[in-house]
């Protein structure tokens, strides 16, 4: 939620008329805000791992190895065969971490796209047409924002049934409110710009103003918001897995690996650390990138 606020804030800044064109600002941005490099590298790394997981894997991630469990039935610590160790079903953690990247990314991206789509549409409608429609949509937004998100997602998944699709539908359907608010605020302020007035004076239709002027202006904050929300949703997936309603087994997501790992963390911390580190880096990557993009879209912050 804070990201929202911040983003709203950032948007306020983005509203200022850019003194400089965004493109040449990129290298200045990198200099002024080096962490965005790190974010970009982490996100690219994540995408790479997700795409090439089958090539990088050591074993089938879902295969349970008889020699993957200790005599007592416990997981094995990292060793020469299983470089990240095994989990409590004797599966190779390394390969599962690789494939977990896919699932986690999928959940993060698809749920964000859903909320992006709903939120942007409603935000534009609300902001541009105002009046009664605006009141109704904003009230709906208030309602969504007042819900305890985790409880609600959990209850929704419980009703829909547990599956990866339902998971990102639930996260996505519940996450649009923030986007809608940000988009609406952006539409409202862009609407007041003199160049919108100018277009109106030139005889541009509502549709033209909406698509050619307002829409391009809401893209930057929405990109920032979406980037941040991908990371947030990956994190949310891990929390939901912890609560027992994450991605359906046996598919590995970092979330359900962590959830499994937390059960034995006192005995076998590697079950927690490898997926935990992977998740941390990925979410951090998106946060850094979103942060950097916010700076990039904010003309006042790059001198």
């Amino acid at each position: 939620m804070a990201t929202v606020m911040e983003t709203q804030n950032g948007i306020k800044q983005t509203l200022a008329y850019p003194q400089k064109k965004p493109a040449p600002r990129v290298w200045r941005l990198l200099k002024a805000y080096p962490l965005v490099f790190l974010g970009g590298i982490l996100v690219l790394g994540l995408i790479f791992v997700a795409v090439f997981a089958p090539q990088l894997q050591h074993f089938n991630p879902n295969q349970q190895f008889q020699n993957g469990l200790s005599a007592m039935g416990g997981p094995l610590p990292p060793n020469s065969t299983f470089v990240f160790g095994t989990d409590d079903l004797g599966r190779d953690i390394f390969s599962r971490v690789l494939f977990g990247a896919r699932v986690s990314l999928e959940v993060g991206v698809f749920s964000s796209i859903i909320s992006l789509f709903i939120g942007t549409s409603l935000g534009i409608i609300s902001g541009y047409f105002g009046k009664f429609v605006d009141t109704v949509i904003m009230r709906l937004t208030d309602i969504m924002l007042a819900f305890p998100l985790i409880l609600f997602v959990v209850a929704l998944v419980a009703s829909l049934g547990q599956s990866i699709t339902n998971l990102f539908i639930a996260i996505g359907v519940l996450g649009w409110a923030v986007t809608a608010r940000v988009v609406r605020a952006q539409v409202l302020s862009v609407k007041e710009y003199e160049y919108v007035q100018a277009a109106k004076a030139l005889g541009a239709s509502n549709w033209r103003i909406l698509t050619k002027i307002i829409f391009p202006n809401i893209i930057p904050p929405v990109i920032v918001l979406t980037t941040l929300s991908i990371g947030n949703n990956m994190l949310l997936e891990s929390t939901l897995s912890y609560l027992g309603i994450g991605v359906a087994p046996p598919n590995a997501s970092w979330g359900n690996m962590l959830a499994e790992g937390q059960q034995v963390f006192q005995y076998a911390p590697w079950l927690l650390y490898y997926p935990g580190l992977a998740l941390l880096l990925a979410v951090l990557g998106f946060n850094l990138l979103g942060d950097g993009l916010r700076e990039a879209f904010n003309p006042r912050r790059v001198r």
Partner: protein
Amino acid sequence: MISYIIRRLGGSVIVLFGIALITFILAYAVPSDPARMILGQHATLQQVDALRKQMGLDEPFIQQFGNYLMNIIHGNLGFSFLQNLPVATLIGQRLPATFQLALVAWLMELIIGLPIGVFMALKDRKMTDHVFNLVSLIGISLPTFFVGLELMYWVAYRANLFPVGGTGGLSFVILPGLTYGITGAAYYSRLLKSSMVDVLNSDYIRTARAKGAAPLRVIMGHAFRNAIIPVITYGATDIGALFGGIVVIEDVFGYSGIGQMAVQAINNLDTPIIMGTVLFAAVFVVAFNFIVDLLYGLIDPRITY
């Protein structure tokens, strides 16, 4: 002012109605039979049917929702299937514990977050800013249960500084609170930083400096109160949500608060509790948003109602 409050309350009622409706639809859709849940497996089909009738589960949706609303208005949030007590009583029992934890968690966030935010604003664009920024982002990027488990193991068990878990006095809430502080402080620090940077660039700060005010005076006397407004907005939603139950952390530390009850209810599909806690948490969020709107008037004299 009065009419603003009334109007605002009216809006809150609509929001709460919407929440009740969505919650009810959700519970209605849950694939589990409340009568069977209450009676257990030994009950005969006749017994179950009788109870369904008695509970009004055979009535049409609208009627059931109407009953539900009437009950809520009378303070009756329903009856837990599994714990055999009114949901309102159960929430009431856990409320003090959750309040205590929520308050400490929130304070932790502020204690960690706000000073870092001010510091980052002062060191804007310097190396230290980047370092703090990275650290705070790492805080945001960590799953709370991960942080909780690590704190439990290292701080409570290994260093033996706090109880490892359970419910009790203040010492029991420090670690869960700290967990929340670590993972949540970054929102505050970053929010405060960005609004502080804006404020520090404003004309009236230059006026204050032109008067010869020292940096501390400029920051605390002039910038802070102006910069804190967006932070308060977030803080209200945050503490509202916290009061409604700190779901994951309560579970990690085995802390018997509302969040833990909600998690257990979800695991068992004890729908009256789920609905009750969702509604309850929403009430807090709505209430705190309301309070904040009134608070703005105190902080920012430009706002009148």
